[in-house]
């Protein structure tokens, strides 16, 4: 199966690979997927408390090229957004941007799940109630 140029570009030059200090209260961490399924994503956001904007985002992904590209793209999109704006990122936006074929849509769903999980972690740490996300088919 041929990968799109954008997937290849993110795979070859992934943006924002790394780790944020998960003990900090303004850092939210989302870990989704499972080794048995062949993909695990960890996505982290750091929220600037003064402005309420996501000042930094990092990821690490175990998975195929599309999974790596989806998480790399997600971190790019997260930076500079408010937490509420970040919640609005839909997996189909990732599918469109990366031209993912149908068999790789689950990679984008996983990236959306990772964003939501990171935001929830941040919310819980800061005394906010956890959001219940709509379930998407993988």
């Amino acid at each position, binding site marked *: *199966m041929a*990968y799109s140029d954008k997937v*290849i570009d993110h*795979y070859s030059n*992934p943006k924002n*690979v790394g*780790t944020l200090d998960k003990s900090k209260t303004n850092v939210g961490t989302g*870990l*989704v*997927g*499972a*080794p*048995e*399924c*062949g*993909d*695990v*994503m*960890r996505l982290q956001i750091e929220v600037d408390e003064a402005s309420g904007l996501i000042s930094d985002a990092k990821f*690490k*992904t*175990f*998975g*195929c*090229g599309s*999974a*790596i590209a989806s998480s790399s793209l997600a971190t790019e999109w997260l930076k500079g957004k408010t937490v509420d704006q970040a919640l609005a990122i839909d997996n189909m936006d990732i599918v469109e941007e990366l031209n993912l074929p149908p*068999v790789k849509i*689950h990679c984008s769903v*996983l990236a959306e799940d990772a964003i939501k999980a990171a935001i929830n972690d941040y919310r819980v740490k800061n005394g906010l109630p956890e959001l219940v996300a709509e379930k998407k088919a*993988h």
Partner: protein
Amino acid sequence: MELNLPIYLDNNATTPMDPRVLEAMLPYFIEKFGNAASRNHSFGWVAEEAVDYSREQIAKLINADPKEIILTSGATEADNLAIKGVYEMYASKGDHIITCTTEHKAVLDTCKHIEKLGGQVTYLDVKEDGLIDMAELEKAVTDKTILIAIMYGNNETGVIQDVKAISKIARKHGVLFFTDGTQVVGKIPVDVNADGIDLMAFSAHKMYGPKGVGALYVRRKNPRVKVTSQMDGGGHERGMRSGTLNVPSIVGFGKACELCMNEMESESKRLSKMRDRLENSLMELEETYVNGNREHRLPHTANISFKYVEGEGLMMGFNKNIALSSGSACTSASLEPSYVLKALGLGDDLAHSSLRFGLGRFTTDEQIDFTIKAIKETVIKLREMSPLWEMFKEGVDINAIEWAHH
């Protein structure tokens, strides 16, 4: 020597044709186009003579009699003919077949078909090294058993079963022994008499011959084996496989067998040396494992798991330049990793992290050097990107985490 890219290391899937094979085939397309079954004119005689000669070349490679070679469209057809043909032919004797979980789909799915017809099939598990347990095999034999179907060498791991021990058990109980020899014939010495094989499937395109042609070896003496034809028609191939013979491809198959016969000894030494160098260099990476028995193994095959990186993602790092195969199929909704590796007891995580290397006649040392470097670099890069690698390095027990299963 100049390095030719891309590098082909998927020779267990198919091999390129040897130019010498093509040369032998060419006259049989236009000039000598006759039907080998045409008995009344020279066009037919020329074709028949070519087929007879090829059949000798093919038989010689496995120490069989030319009359014991039933030409087919390939190994899949030969697998089907052997299993279904024995099941039908020996129905009065019994209806039980013994096979194992790491067989090729052409054998497993044929056995599933037999079950649908009402037959009984035992699927033996393999040990961690990919070999079957002889005591378990013998225990599985009943008075209804008509066939033991165990492959000679595995396509994914290269593990070679102890066929002599299997045939001994088969003989002892008066059961026929069929083996899928697709990966081994032409690569290591196979002798149907010394090995005690009653039926064997093999294919030309795995040994530098053309695609679309293969054979089923069917023993004629001690015991005389017969299979019920699965294709009705002109009664070709001693009535076991009807259909006009594919003369050019059969000529190519014969030539491919002759070349393997002549070059096998030196070639298998060259390949195993190269394979070992590749394997040992890659094993310098931490948390890297060879799958399957390393001693009883085809000389040109290596199956290696690189823990904490995913196979398809790994291949993407170099698949522009290197063609090989991954044990992980992340292209379907089910994301099922290789059933062969899982049968060896590998966890899904290791099975998802595996690569299969199939070296071949045209693989060079320069290509191996390039491959070692490219794979090492990609594994290191992807581990830097892998959350599982980070957890492993921090001493986190990955199995203790409650993963959300999708």
